[in-house]
């Protein structure tokens, strides 16, 4: 990695605030190299693994599998729709880019959830911590998405790793916020009941607060995944690859057709991901037992 010289260019056009930020970034670059290398190898491993696993099943196996999942979780009609959509992607020759986009989304949102959910839980019971977290989240959400690309490139060069990290930062706020909200919204009397039956604080979290907050947390998971998808397209500018790359090529070459195809594939992926993860937020999941769900699934085939 030969990036240590890079920041020197950027200070020139920035005012004092930007200059301070740039100095900080530069300091980090010079002193934090081992940490960045560790993060890089971790993220690289994760995205690589995700892409490898998703590439193993051929399209003719993957598409029906997704359709089946859709039939189970959403509806029969949506299963047909997603099957058609995936076939369209395959027909446009965009299957592989879609898979790498999906891998990036999965890796980035997984990391966002692993970091975000504990932060949300932690901040729910600590007012002062939340007072700090909240403005940071506001900042993360309102900062234009492109801005994340610059430090990401500086720390991690170009490619999958900075794309994943920029995506992870951009997509984390909703899950933190909604986890916080979900836990805060657990009715007071349930908390009291938990305590009255002798719960320790960790039992209270695992047995009372989290199960009750689950639908709200899942809404956060859904939002995070959707934001990750939108950011992954932008991250193609720093070599994220996948469908974003197709769109980017469309823009660069003023190729309306190519841009449209890439955009359409993104929309199809987005709709499928959205509906599937949204089904996790419904109370049905938390209220139906496994046998009930299997029965519902069987009824689906016998009834229609």
């Amino acid at each position, binding site marked *: 990695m030969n990036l240590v010289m890079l920041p020197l260019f950027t200070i020139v056009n920035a005012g004092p605030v930007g200059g301070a930020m740039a100095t900080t970034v530069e300091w980090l670059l010079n002193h934090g190299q081992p940490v960045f290398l560790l993060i890089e190898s971790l993220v690289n491993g994760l995205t690589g693994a995700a892409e490898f696993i998703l590439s193993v099943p051929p399209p003719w196996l993957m598409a029906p599998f997704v359709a089946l999942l859709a039939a189970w979780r959403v509806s029969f009609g949506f299963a047909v729709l997603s099957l058609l959509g995936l076939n369209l992607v395959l027909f446009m020759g965009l299957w592989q880019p879609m898979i790498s986009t999906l891998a990036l989304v999965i890796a980035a949102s997984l990391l966002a959830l692993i970091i975000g959910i504990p932060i949300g839980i932690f901040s729910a019971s600590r007012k002062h911590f939340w007072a700090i977290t909240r403005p940071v989240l506001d900042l993360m959400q309102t900062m234009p998405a492109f801005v994340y690309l610059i430090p990401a490139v500086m720390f991690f060069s170009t490619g999958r790793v900075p794309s994943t990290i920029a995506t992870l930062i951009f997509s984390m706020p909703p899950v933190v916020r909604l986890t916080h909200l979900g836990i805060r919204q657990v009715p007071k*009397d349930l908390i009291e009941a938990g305590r*009255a039956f002798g719960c320790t604080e960790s039992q209270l979290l695992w047995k009372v607060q989290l199960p*009750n907050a689950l639908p709200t947390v899942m809404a956060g998971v859904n939002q995070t995944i959707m934001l990750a998808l939108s950011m992954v397209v932008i991250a193609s500018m720093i070599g994220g690859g996948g469908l974003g790359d197709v769109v980017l090529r469309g823009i660069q070459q003023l190729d309306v057709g190519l841009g449209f195809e890439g955009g359409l594939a993104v929309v199809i992926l987005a709709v499928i991901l959205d509906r599937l993860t949204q089904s996790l937020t419904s109370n049905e999941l938390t209220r139906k037992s496994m046998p009930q769900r299997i029965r519902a699934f069987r009824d689906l085939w016998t009834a229609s």
Partner: protein
Amino acid sequence: MPPLISLKQLWKVFGDQSEQALSDLQSGKDADALHAETGIKAAVSDVSLSIEAGEIFVVMGLSGSGKSTLLRMINGLISPSAGEVVIEGKPLTGMSLAEIQRLRRSKMAMVFQSFALFPQRTALENAAFGLEVAGVPQRQRLDKARQALERVGLGLELHNYPHQLSGGMQQRVGLARALALDPPILLMDEAFSALDPLIRREMQEQLLELQAESSRTIVFISHDLDEAVRLGDRIALMKSGKVLQCDSPSELLSKPANEQVRHFFRDVDAASVLTVKTIAETPDCVLRNSDGRQSLESAAAGKEAFVVDDQNLFIGVLRPNGEMITAQQGPVLTPETTIREAINSVVSAPYPVPIVGADQRLIGVISPRRLLGSMLLE
């Protein structure tokens, strides 16, 4: 034996300046004056009570009287500003959080006004919650939970979720959740207040049945006087954080400590609270069965005579026509019978009905005139 639960000079003041306010109040400052000055009110002020093992102890008061706060101080959900809660001789104040948690798991379970069932758990899983928290293995805890649900009559609803059950059924689950732990102390916070009157009545009867099966110590919070009177062995009447009087229902009714207590009981149907022993009269003629039958009849001289033996044990009533009606043949009341329950036998008997204690001793008699007079009692 010391009382199971004793509360010693318990105070609870909420708010930022509670310490200053507390010391003001303890040194005798007027509560209303303090409220006007600082806006601080004592939720519980200077309450001392002792609750004996095996009794249903009702804390009764209007909303805002501090009764729920008092209940939560017994299991440590709220810690007192001053004073002491002592359970089985051990003060709660000195305990660590872990010790209090252990105490809650083993000694006391709570039933809530809002039911407070966990919506994502089935009735069975809800009932097993306390045991789960206590670390009882799954099979064992589900077994116990099932037994508890069967005891409250929900054996068929094990796998339903709370939202699929009616209000009464939900509170039965709440009761089963507490019973599954088999705790010596049951804390019930307006447990039946959110239910329809008919269901409430059913639940009260069920609670009394459960209490008859295996006696626990039940601290029952209520704002419903009829409920308090029906359930309570003793009632502590609370107003603005203070206990006005603590006594058995009929004592509260017949000997109110002050005007406020009397005011509370204004609308209570005295006949269903007061027992016959409180209005028993001495019979006109009591005869000892040491002499022969002949002398008895002559001594009675054409009046009703109540015949007892040498130890004062009741034998029967001798009618003016010489007919002898023994305790097994004629109507007899126990001292704990309420006046209302006694109406039927007193009215239909041709002579004053004898009241006989559990030891067969004649306590007194009750005539229709006396019965009617008692109903005028103010």
